[in-house]
């Protein structure tokens, strides 16, 4: 199936690339070209007249400026030749430096006070990756991020975002090229990128409104899904925002795993719609679908004896996400106060074979067929109640469903609904710094509540970041 989707996608990209290729000129076309040339000449004449008018105006201004001697306004004859001399503070970069890409860095650190041992953290009823959980206790550096971006040439632009972990390891978070110069709303992207599914997935962790990912993201996507592959997005030429996207990737990340195959391991499609209601409201809603075919995917899950047991799963995984976000700011001016409401619903169907404890770490491995429909959602609101200060609340809940574990049922079937309540306050002294306090009551295991308290800082330096919606 993935090979079939790959072929038309490749053709589409190829067709788009070759579109401006040479055409054979017929007599008709020559006439057309002549007509266009004539029009061009006319338009340039009009332009020239306009420029002359501006020159006269510039001269008049220069005379006026000279009269008002206290004003050091440069004689705007330069206006006749639009490009201004380079600002004195930023000397025109020359040579190699002129082509330096935009560079920015994000530094983060935190303090965590957790009432439960984070090494024993588990979301009961769900297979989880090592990234699941609230992280380390005490003071620690969080992930630092280094981002580099620039246009490559007339066709391509590229982004590299490297994450430096506090344990001194380096991870390529995103490294992709994309083609912003194709016509008709088509934007292909290739390399490693955060998948366009859901709302939060494409955003980097430092722009999230809470220090950690919603439980649904942790349970269904191992935190956040990055794809190594190709994405094709298309924006419709309509006044209401409509965006359709499709991706194929190697699927090495949860819910897939590294399968050592030539074909693609995961594919997804998504659709977003959005718009404004009056000047004060903006919204976006989306539907996404992700499918992966893990083979021998190793994860951990809380078993009935209270151990974090290894599990190996082979089969198919289908995830659907519905997401929406609504932002309110009086007259669209978010500086004083604003409100943001966002929620996402996840539903996953997995079936295949599940092996309990494949490495016999706890006893005897046990394999059987496995089939599950599981769900989860979160709803969060963030309110800026005065300039620079925001308050946020979030509720997370997961539904383990009624998985058919077969002979693994005695080992794994817990039937518990994990949930979590979170509140945060953050202070944003400038566009480039933010400080946050967060509390959470995490009830993801039967009979245990983790009381979590976090302090966090986020500092951004370098090139001005984009204001994502």
């Amino acid at each position: 199936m993935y090979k079939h989707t790959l072929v038309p996608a490749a053709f589409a990209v190829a067709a788009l690339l070759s579109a401006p290729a040479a055409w054979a000129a017929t007599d008709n076309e020559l006439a057309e070209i002549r007509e266009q040339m004539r029009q061009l000449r006319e338009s340039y004449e009009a332009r020239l007249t306009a420029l002359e008018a501006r020159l006269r105006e510039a001269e008049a201004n220069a005379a006026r400026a000279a009269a008002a001697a206290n004003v050091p306004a440069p004689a705007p004859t330069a206006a006749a030749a639009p490009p201004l001399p380079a600002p004195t503070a930023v000397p025109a970069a020359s040579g190699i430096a002129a082509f330096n890409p935009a560079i920015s860095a994000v530094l983060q650190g935190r303090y965590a006070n957790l009432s439960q041992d984070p090494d024993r953290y588990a979301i009961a009823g769900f297979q989880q990756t090592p990234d699941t959980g609230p992280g380390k206790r005490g003071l620690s550096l969080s992930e630092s991020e280094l981002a580099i971006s620039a246009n490559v040439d007339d066709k391509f632009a590229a982004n590299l975002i490297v994450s430096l972990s506090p344990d001194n390891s380096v991870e390529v978070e995103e490294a992709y090229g994309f083609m912003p110069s194709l016509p008709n709303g088509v934007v292909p992207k290739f390399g490693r990128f955060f998948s366009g599914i859901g709302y939060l997935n494409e955003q980097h962790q430092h722009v999230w409104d809470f220090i950690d990912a919603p439980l649904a993201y942790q349970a269904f996507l191992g935190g956040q899904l990055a794809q190594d592959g190709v994405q094709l997005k298309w924006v419709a030429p309509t006044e209401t925002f409509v965006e359709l996207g499709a991706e194929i990737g190697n699927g090495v990340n949860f819910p897939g795993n590294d399968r050592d195959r030539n074909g693609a391991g995961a594919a997804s499609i998504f659709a977003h719609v959005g718009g404004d209601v009056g000047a004060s409201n903006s919204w976006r809603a989306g539907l996404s679908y992700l499918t992966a075919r893990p083979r021998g995917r190793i994860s951990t899950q809380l078993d009935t004896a209270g151990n974090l047991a290894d599990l190996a799963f082979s089969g198919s995984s289908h995830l659907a996400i519905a997401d929406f976000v609504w932002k309110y700011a009086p007259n669209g001016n978010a500086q004083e106060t604003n409100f943001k409401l966002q929620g996402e619903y996840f539903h996953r169907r997995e079936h295949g074979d599940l092996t309990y404890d494949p490495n016999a770490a706890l006893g005897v491995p046990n394999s059987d067929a496995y089939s599950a429909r599981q769900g989860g959602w979160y709803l969060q609101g963030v309110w800026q109640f005065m300039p620079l200060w925001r308050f946020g609340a979030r509720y997370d809940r997961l539904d383990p469903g009624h998985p058919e574990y077969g002979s693994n049922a005695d080992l794994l079937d817990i039937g518990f609904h994990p949930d979590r309540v979170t509140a945060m306050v953050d202070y944003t002294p400038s566009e480039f710094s933010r400080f946050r306090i967060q509390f959470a009551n995490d009830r993801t295991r039967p009979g245990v509540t983790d009381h979590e308290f976090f302090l966090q800082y986020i500092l951004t330096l370098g090139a001005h970041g984009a204001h994502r919606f």
Partner: protein
Amino acid sequence: MKTRWLITLAFAALAVSTAARADLNVFATVPEWGALASELGGEKVKVYTATNALQDPHHVEAKPSLIARARSADLIVATGAELEIGWVPLVVQQAGNPKVRPGQPGYFEAAPLVPMLERPTRLDRAEGDVHPLGNPHIQTDPRNILRVAGPLAARLAELDAANAAYYQSRYKAFDEKWRANIARWEKEAAPLRGVPVVVQHKGFPYLEEWLGLKEVASLEPKPGVEPTVAYMTELLATLKQQPAKMVIRAAYQSDRPSQWIAERANLKQVVLPFTVGGDDKATTLQALFDDTIERLLKGAQ
């Protein structure tokens, strides 16, 4: 299979969309350029203005509505000088519309056409919200509007050659009218020359330069940095020594800092529309300056 279906749909919608359009779609980032494009383009252009006068044009997000509008735009008219740096590049990138990418005829910036003021000598974020290319609020001087009008009319003519003469004649009419207006405004505003003022945000250097207002203080310790109590107290002491007539702020800004200083330093509060749509009277470019001068004169009494 799904991908193939999507692509088919994409091309079908594309065919429909290209057939249906006739006018030039102009995407203006701020109201002043939207108004100017309408003045010059008349009925041949369809203008969409991305922000209103009550928004700070620097703090705007790349909203879905903006991406959708940029998708079918023929021309983006922006201020430039990094005013819209947080959102226009992202909007253009996500819209998949190569016509309006920077460097293309479909992308027009106003700031490079005017002599920029307040170009920082030190580029450092410790200095607050600094704009390396100078203060981007160029629209408060009507002479700048005139400087932008000519090239903008020429750009419209370039993109829509069939109507080049139409744009040219509208530009001529605008130019004539605007020069007469400037002369009138300068006469009306003569009493404002040398009047000391306090500004809430460093948004008015062009207006001050044009009318000869004397800015004695800003309520922001550094551009874009919220005033602190300590700073305001210090400012109050300065104003006792060096009194000002009024405190000026733009329509989109909070009234608190102005109110605080106005009460204590005996200043008049003047709220300026700042751009088209900033108050009930400033509905057109001309009304914007009529109203601005009227309000300043009242404040100077």
